[in-house]
């Protein structure tokens, strides 16, 4: 019962208070080593011209208590690095990161399990790792056992579990520790359809209690359903940070523009080939595929026009006349 009231209190999004997650000009650069020798040398001396990959480039944002924030972006945009930084696995090179409270990450569900120990022992182990004491773990133990639906297997070594069972146990532990911050990656293929539905409901339930949520998904409908606010990332930058609907439209327009650019280049290349090549076969092949590309380009451009007007409409509705430029790029 007391827990219920606790949750009630959490529900208010308190914007005035200090943020729960605060990134201030965070940069993260991965050093890629050309060879194993290079890597060995790097142990003792600084590599001279290393290949650097900047995964986060001056990223700043704040998340307040009770907020649910979606993160959009293509593969390699820095989403995972961002989440790993929030969960404390990665460390930034520059800038500062503040994360307050216990973080439950639905990213690596089976991480930290010891396969020789039983499911029940692993609940304790994982609880300890997350910083809980025996009493706190005892409280959640039964909930976890019930949620994971492992039956008698809960007292068997985890080594005997199927991968689905391991995921279920991992999920059950993470969602039942009553975290302050929940980090969810979309790739949550846990168990069969029924269990998936159960997981989704549980996530929704937790979110409704007012926990702070970071949600990563390619499924825009899901993000919109859960998050009011979203962040669009591209190549380590935050391109846009605003209402989910708007962010999604910005993302789509940006993505279509890029696709159009690419398609145009391809078409230009083909046209050049047709006008300059001597090889009749090549020309014929190019002429065959050219109409297909042009048709695709048309649909892309139509899409872009649609999204742009949608975005304008949204902004007009949302911000009225002062909707000149709300992008914070």
């Amino acid at each position, binding site marked *: 019962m007391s827990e219920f009231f606790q949750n009630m209190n959490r529900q208010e999004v308190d914007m005035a208070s200090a943020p729960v997650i605060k990134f201030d000009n965070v940069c993260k650069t*991965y050093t890629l080593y050309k060879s*194993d020798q290079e890597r*060995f040398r790097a142990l003792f001396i600084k590599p001279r011209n290393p290949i650097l990959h900047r995964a986060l480039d001056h990223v700043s944002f704040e998340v307040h208590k009770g907020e649910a924030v979606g993160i959009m972006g293509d593969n390699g945009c820095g989403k995972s690095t961002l989440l790993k930084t929030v969960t*404390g*696995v990665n460390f930034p090179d520059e800038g500062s990161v503040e994360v307050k409270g216990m973080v439950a990450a639905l990213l*690596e569900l089976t991480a*930290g399990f*010891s396969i020789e120990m039983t499911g029940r022992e692993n609940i304790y182990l994982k609880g300890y790792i997350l910083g809980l004491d025996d009493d706190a773990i005892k409280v959640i133990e039964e909930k976890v056992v019930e949620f994971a639906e492992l039956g008698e297997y809960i007292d068997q070594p985890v080594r005997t579990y199927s991968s689905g069972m391991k995921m279920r146990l991992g999920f059950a532990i993470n969602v039942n520790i009553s975290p302050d911050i929940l980090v969810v990656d979309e790739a949550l293929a846990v168990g069969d359809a029924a269990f998936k539905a159960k997981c989704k409901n549980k996530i929704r339930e937790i979110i409704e209690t007012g926990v702070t949520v970071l949600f990563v998904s390619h499924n825009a409908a899901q993000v919109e359903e859960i998050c009011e606010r979203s962040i669009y990332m591209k190549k380590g930058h935050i391109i846009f940070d605003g209402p989910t609907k708007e962010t999604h439209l910005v993302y789509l327009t940006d993505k279509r523009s890029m696709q159009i650019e690419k398609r145009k280049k391809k078409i230009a290349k083909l046209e050049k080939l047709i006008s300059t090549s001597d090889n009749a076969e090549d020309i014929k092949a190019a002429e065959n595929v050219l109409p297909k590309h042009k048709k695709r380009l048309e649909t892309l451009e139509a899409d872009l026009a649609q999204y742009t007007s949608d975005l304008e409409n949204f902004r007009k509705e949302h911000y009225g006349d002062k909707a000149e430029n709300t992008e914070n790029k």
Partner: protein
Amino acid sequence: MIIVFLKDIINEHKDFGKQIFVLAKTELIKTYKGAAIGPFWAVVKPAFTLFVYWFAFSIGIKKLGHVDVLIHGHNLSFDRFLFMLVGFIPWFFISESITKGAKEIRLNRQYVTKINFPVSTIMTFTSIARLYVHLALSLIMYVIVALMWGTSWYNLQIFFYMPLMFLFFLFLSWSTAPMCAFSRDMENAIVSIMSGIFWLTGVIYNSYDLPKPLDTIMLFNPINFFVNGYRNAFLYDRFFFEFRTELVIFLVEFFALFFLGIFNYNRLRKKIPDVL
């Protein structure tokens, strides 16, 4: 600077006391589960090694049946089996600590790359698991020593040597484990060196009894300090402070290793998740 770094390591251990012992237990279970005689392998393996060396040195090479050691101006003569036994017990712990300790971060990478985990405790809980085995072996050794040689108050020095040995090789792994996580070459280098180090250590022979400059050079090998230390406690009836040069050289090495470990661990800690 070093103090700040040390504080980091201590903080990582502070709220993690219980987990360390739980994880040490799992570490043991992991090693010995699934075998019919399970934990007995911890005894069988070293016993066999010891037997083979004893066979080679006191049966194979007949002359080497006894070891003469000069202690307090007197020549003490030991049966080579007893002499080797007391040397081998710390050696087993030391060689495992060095070669396996260096690999621990790589082997436990799930704690480094997947979740927020105090990485320095990985070395601690795996070392504790090895210490459990060492305790069991030491107990067996003590029974044999008591039967063959007798007991004395000097035996209590084990409580000086054993914790010191544990710490020394824990500090060593603060340097080696992050380095091996970074580069496989480091790991291979350590394994290669260790296979030779055995013969540079007085496990089978008496390291004090060597031609002139060599006996002093041997004092710089910290493994000799422990191997001879265990013999101080169980065979030589000598206190650890009686051979002052040996003690001083060791203490200098001990603190050097300690600071080097803190330095290396903190230098590489934040880079390890990126390279594993």
